[in-house]
């Protein structure tokens, strides 16, 4: 048993979750693989979206996976960093937009 919560080598074992629930695991991976196929969005665009979301949900496995995926696709580091900022901007915006709630409450309670 590893004595850290995240073990880089565990990413390779992701597929094993199917062993304990074949039906759900299979459905998940089928869905996952389908999502990232070329579609109305290119697989390249989806890789950048995945990278941004990986940062927002702070998943170290996903960050490793989609940085490598981006490199493989020829995505530049400038494009990757812009994607990370897009994710970060939404995440910080999501916090800041609650500032309106604070302002509303403040105003309601104030004379």
């Amino acid at each position, binding site marked *: 048993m590893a004595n850290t919560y995240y073990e880089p080598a565990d990413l390779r074992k992701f597929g094993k979750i199917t062993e304990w629930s074949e039906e759900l695991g299979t459905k998940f991976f089928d869905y996952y693989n389908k999502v990232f196929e070329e579609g109305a969005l290119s*697989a*390249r665009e989806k890789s950048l979206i995945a990278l941004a979301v990986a940062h927002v949900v702070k998943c170290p496995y996903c960050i490793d996976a989609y940085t490598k995926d981006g*490199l*493989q696709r020829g995505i*530049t580091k400038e494009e990757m960093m812009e994607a990370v900022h897009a994710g970060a901007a939404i995440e910080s915006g999501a916090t800041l937009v609650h500032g309106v709630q604070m302002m509303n409450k403040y105003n309601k309670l104030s004379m």
Partner: protein
Amino acid sequence: MATKSLKARHKELANTQRQLEILSNGIFRDGDLPYFKDKIAEIGMFPLKPRKLEVLQINVGYMCNQVCEHCHVDAGPDRKEIMTQETMELCLEVIRNTGAHTLDLTGGAPEMNPNFRWFVEEAAKAGIQDFIVRSNLTIIKANKKYQDLPEFFKKFNIHVVSSMPHYTRGKTDKQRGEGVFDKSIAALQELNAVGYGMPDSPLRLDLVYNPSGAYLPADQSALERDFKKALLEDFNIQFHNLFAITNLPISRFLDYLIASENYEDYMISLVDAYNPAAVQNVMCTNTISVSWDGWLYDCDFNQMLGLKVGSKVKHIKDYNEEVLNNRNIVISQHCYGCTAGAGSSCQGTVA
């Protein structure tokens, strides 16, 4: 970035025996990863046998004007291994009689061999169907004496295959050296100007992409689309096909993998991406590789590892296609580089 070969720097990995030890020890000897031999035995492909010979690949010397970080040849300006005219004569005899439809000249920078042009002229007379020269592009801009290469290639209807690791300056120069991108762009424009790479032009210009780091290439057709769009929009450059080639863990790339602590992860990526369908078409099954000094190998990678063909015919002076076609192909763990994903060869993906 280094400006000398591993050999000139007396590095441990200039020794091919040491490379072979590394490729058979560690995670393979510990049983964490299967040996290539065992992996292909699972699908009844061991021993690996040749199919019909299609490609004769001749390495005319390891001298090069560049010192690329990933180079499996460990080529560079300091390499003195150059094919002599006598060995070229032996090659011409084979070219005139071979059943192969493709002649593939590589190096180093093949153009730096002093007898390169004579050899091309003589070889072209054999009327081989597809005559490839692997050009690093910058050679065309390296010295005045190489400036007419586009016209020379055109005259002999040479199929030009050129390395281009990325369509951006930063990534290209990091792998291949400062200024390589701009020179490559200028060379591609000159090749286009004489008709190479233009739509419907019979003058074939293909590009080779290989990753600038410890990762595998993505889908070749998607990369080709990105390269075509970017090179056309930014530089008005056109080309025919892009070959995505996986970096094999040998020579300078192996040295990089070990120094950057990526070796194990890279080997795991290769083994995880192993594709049995790619084994059927690996290039060693249709290729013979000839070294600057006339020895015969299953591929250019085996040549750089010093793994000569497993046949009683081992040298161009004794060349016999029938005998060679009965050989067992020599393999080691670097072969996983050719069977990962869609497979990899000097002609791009194979599966």
